[in-house]
């Protein structure tokens, strides 16, 4: 399992692994938003938490189809399925590797983009906390979507259609934490609910993902 995690991290960081693309996308998106809505500082300040959350979510989505598709294409997934590691474990490790290469860097990059979008000072801490708590759920749900679409041609588009509705609760609670935090309000309830979603997806999604993988490998 640790070997698998290490391999996935190495693969992501080496040339052609796509690490950094999601981050660049996040950056470009945040730069484009002011062109769309105008440069007024108070407008930007109000929408900054939501924009950053949506940006993080879309950047996560970009690399989801790589979670299983590459291993499926080169036959590694067949070999992993016959190896002495349960597919549930493989799913967790793959989601973790995805989070470490997208969710975590996005979380660390977000405050920098918050400056660009005129995020109120009170919001920085809550933005980072909400992303740190919420993005694991995005990776876990995404791993399930990737497992569903692993054998399909043009699976990437379908993956977005399947996964985005599943992201609704995470996005709502995550953006609430960031928005209310930026407005100086109490964030206890949404933060607890967001953590609950992350914990719930960690407990359940690997099983759903493994079931989908077994069906797709038949």
């Amino acid at each position: 399992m640790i070997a698998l995690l290490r391999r996935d991290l190495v693969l992501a960081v080496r040339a052609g692994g796509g690490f950094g693309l999601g981050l660049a996308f996040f950056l470009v998106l945040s730069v484009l938003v002011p062109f769309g809505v105008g440069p007024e500082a108070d407008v930007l300040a109000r929408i900054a938490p939501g924009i950053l959350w949506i940006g993080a979510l879309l950047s996560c989505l970009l690399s989801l189809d790589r979670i299983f598709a590459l291993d499926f294409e080169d036959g590694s997934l067949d070999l992993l399925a016959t190896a002495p590691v349960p597919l549930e474990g493989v799913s967790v490790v793959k989601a973790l590797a995805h989070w470490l290469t997208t969710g975590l860097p996005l979380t660390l990059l977000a405050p920098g983009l918050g400056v660009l979008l005129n995020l109120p000072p009170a919001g920085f801490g809550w933005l980072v906390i909400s992303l740190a708590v919420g993005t694991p759920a995005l990776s876990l749900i995404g791993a399930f979507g990737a497992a569903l679409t692993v054998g399909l041609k043009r699976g990437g588009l379908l993956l977005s259609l399947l996964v985005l509705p599943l992201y609704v609760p995470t996005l709502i609670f995550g953006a609430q934490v960031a928005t209310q935090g930026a407005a100086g309000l109490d964030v206890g309830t949404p933060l607890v609910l967001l953590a609950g979603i992350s914990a719930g997806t960690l407990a359940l999604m690997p099983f759903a993902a493994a079931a989908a993988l077994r069906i797709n490998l038949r």
Partner: protein
Amino acid sequence: MLSVRGVCVARGGVPVLEGVDLDLEAGQALVLRGPNGIGKTTLLRTLAGLQPPVEGQIEMAPDLVAYTGHSDGVKATLTVVENLEFWARVFGQGDIAPALAAFDLEGLVERQAQNLSAGQRRRLGLARLMVTGRPIWMLDEPTVSLDAASVKMFAASVQAHCAAGGAAIMATHIDLGLDGLVLDLSPYRAIGRMSAGGFEEAFE
């Protein structure tokens, strides 16, 4: 080690082979023969546990199989040694040196897999079998893109594996010079059977 009784396998919901019986003992190497499309790959995948048989029994202790399919499962941006070490760790094995030696990969250890030729890549894929430590090798067209010398290397490693108490079952069209058993799958072709799972039978 492996006992198969009356197995029917399906590809894409359509049965391709039915009533397959075969036995594999320690030390044996079994070669599956048959024209393209008869279902050799499907049978091997079923035996490896990647898909369930439509009917029949497959008796085998768990965690015996090392499977290798058409693709090598080799990561292009990892070096030869990184690829092998990864699989050795996944299967809880330590030493990869014998596998490197058996397939003459020692001169290539630091090379990234994307810079290997097709034959060298295939050798790496086959060397992976040795680092699994599993007794039953299941091989699907293992000699594709191998030259004569490499085929000999491969045959020798299969022989050594069987001599050490292992077993192998492979689908191949090349004569490896193994004094193993040959099973022709043609008589087991499923004719006129409808889709798997009883949907069509309900109409009859």
